[in-house]
């Protein structure tokens, strides 16, 4: 189904549904989503806030909130089903083979521990090095993410580093054990645009070096297009379209994808050329959600959309769309 060699995918999310039980009702955050990621591939999950991008990332990492329940599906990573794996098995994989970079590096790092020590902790936890060698390895990692003067910086606390430097430390921590899959959850939010470019280039370069798969979570379609080979568009807990980047921009097939591209200020010559997307995400606590959750905002809506179960159409060359009336 992918353009990559027909090998076993590194990560296969199949039919995954996640719910959150809250005081005000059950939030159906993910509804039977599926995608595959092969070794060395980069894929972006794109969508508005509340569409389920981060929940997907957290589900893969096994760090969902207590209130979450996985009601269906599997997450197969390297032959192991992560949904049903026990805590011990997860603990072995997480950090070593699966790594994540969080949105805000300042809150994700331990504020009262020097950054070199935090990297050494990970190396020691996963048993790759001896306690005597760990500090030197941590310094080497800081040098790999191009932090100037790594020996001195290893002794710095997060508050002594700029936002871009903290994000480099996060990347160094994530890559310390040479993971096979890196999840980058909005890695450049809050960073300046030139810093964003440097950080994204760094992630792309290191991923290529290690033949690592990358899952980039972002709301910025432009960023996704620049760095990822495939894009999956999410809307209200559904993956509405998955396609190679060029195909997604050339021939978007889901009405939401088309709107999202038209709403992104990038190529448009003036403001009138930008489309707005009417309406908002549906309330995911509703018990009577239609099978397609875009119906209330869609211009092509018909009775089928509210009655028939949602179909996932394969359009060839890794292009999938979940719509009864694709463009």
């Amino acid at each position, binding site marked *: 189904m992918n353009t990559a060699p027909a090998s076993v995918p590194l990560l296969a999310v199949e039919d995954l549904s996640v719910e959150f039980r809250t005081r005000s009702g059950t939030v159906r955050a993910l509804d039977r989503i599926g995608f595959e990621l092969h070794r060395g591939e980069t894929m972006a999950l794109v969508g508005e806030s509340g569409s389920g991008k981060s929940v997907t990332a957290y589900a893969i990492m096994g760090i969902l909130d207590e209130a979450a329940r996985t009601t269906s599906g599997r997450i197969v990573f390297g032959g192991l089903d992560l949904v049903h794996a026990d805590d011990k098995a997860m603990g072995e994989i997480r950090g070593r083979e699966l790594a994540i970079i969080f949105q805000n590096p300042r809150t994700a790092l331990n504020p009262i521990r020097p950054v070199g020590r935090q990297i050494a902790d990970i190396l020691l936890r996963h048993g790759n090095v001896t306690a005597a060698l760990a500090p030197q390895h941590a310094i080497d990692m800081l040098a790999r993410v191009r932090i100037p003067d790594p020996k001195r910086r290893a002794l710095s606390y997060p508050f002594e580093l700029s*936002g871009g430097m903290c994000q480099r430390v996060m990347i160094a921590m994530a890559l310390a054990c040479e993971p096979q899959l890196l999840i980058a959850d909005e890695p450049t939010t809050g960073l300046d645009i030139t810093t964003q*470019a440097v950080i994204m280039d760094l992630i792309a370069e290191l991923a290529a070096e290690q033949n690592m798969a990358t899952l980039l979570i972002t709301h910025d379609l*432009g960023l996704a297009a620049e760095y990822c080979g495939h894009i999956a568009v999410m809307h209200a807990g559904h993956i509405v379209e998955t396609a190679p980047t060029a195909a997604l921009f050339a021939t978007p097939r889901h009405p939401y994808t088309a709107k999202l591209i038209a709403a992104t*200020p990038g190529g448009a010559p003036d403001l009138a050329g930008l489309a*707005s997307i009417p309406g908002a995400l549906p309330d995911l606590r509703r018990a009577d959600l239609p099978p397609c959750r875009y119906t209330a905002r869609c211009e092509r809506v018909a009775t089928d959309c509210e009655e028939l179960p949602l179909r996932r159409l394969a359009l060839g060359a890794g292009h999938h769309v979940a719509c009864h009336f694709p463009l």
Partner: protein
Amino acid sequence: MMAGEALLAVEGLRKLFPVGKRAIWPRNRVPSFLHAVDGVSFAIGRGETVGLVGESGCGKSTLVRLIARLLDPSDGSIRFDGEEIGTVPARRFGLAPQRGQIQMVFQDATDSLNPHFTAFRAIADPLLRLRRLSGAALRARVAEVARLTGLSADLLGRYPHQLSGGQKARVGIARAIAVEPRLLILDEPTSALDVSVQVVILQLLQDLKRQLNLSYLFVSHDLNVVRLLCDRILVMYLGHIVESGPAGQVFAAPAHPYTQALLSAVPRPGASAGRSTRIGLPGEPRSPIDPAPQICPLYGRCGRASEACVASMPVLREIAAGQFAACHHPIADAVEPRLMAAG
């Protein structure tokens, strides 16, 4: 541009913040100063939208707070509609007649709306304080600006937590235009919004500008948005304006190396070749604390630097019609430099 014509004219504006430990005997130490805004001059014409771009720490926010008269400048003049307002202390500017004419829309509507105020109360607040309106007149004016900003009447009774991001942004705009300002300062008005809502708010701002004949100072680090909304842009780096000019022209042919680097970092959908053409800025910015006055602020990160860049501080000069850059070695390949024909 003649000084009398512009709505806002800023001349040689500086703001220095004292930094470092306070000594018991002040004469025993040399004071240090952080040069947040260091000699900035520009003008905003009537009905013009000027974009202010730059990275965090470049002095955008300080400049905006100086113009909004929330901070007192260290030096320089701010003239609004021909009258000097830079000398009025910020504490007393609330009583000045210009207070209502310069209004601000803040970055994150969630943080800038009082959680105890309904939308109605938030919009009414400046009218109560600056216009002393009450009763039917107040309700009529609030209803009018709510209509202008597309807020339906039933939303006015709601508190911020009951409103969506787009609705909160509208309340923030309605509050700012309620007292009929002539200059609206917009500080990243859409940075907290999703693209689907962002478009609607930007279009609303453009409509309001035409209807109410407003001038905008639009601060943003989303260069794509600035390009769509602004007539002219100012690029700021370490307290200096390094380039200014018509938005289309600056985006098509940046003259300052910093502007060029900034533009090349913008991710564009459909342009996957972006990385190969990127111009990087190596290293970190120079320290803004007691900078050497003769060294170009970009020195050390710039590929075009020469001895001239440490010998004298470059000043803004016209590179092409209406486009100014403060650089000894401007990029002049795209646009033919023209002889001065300014009026």
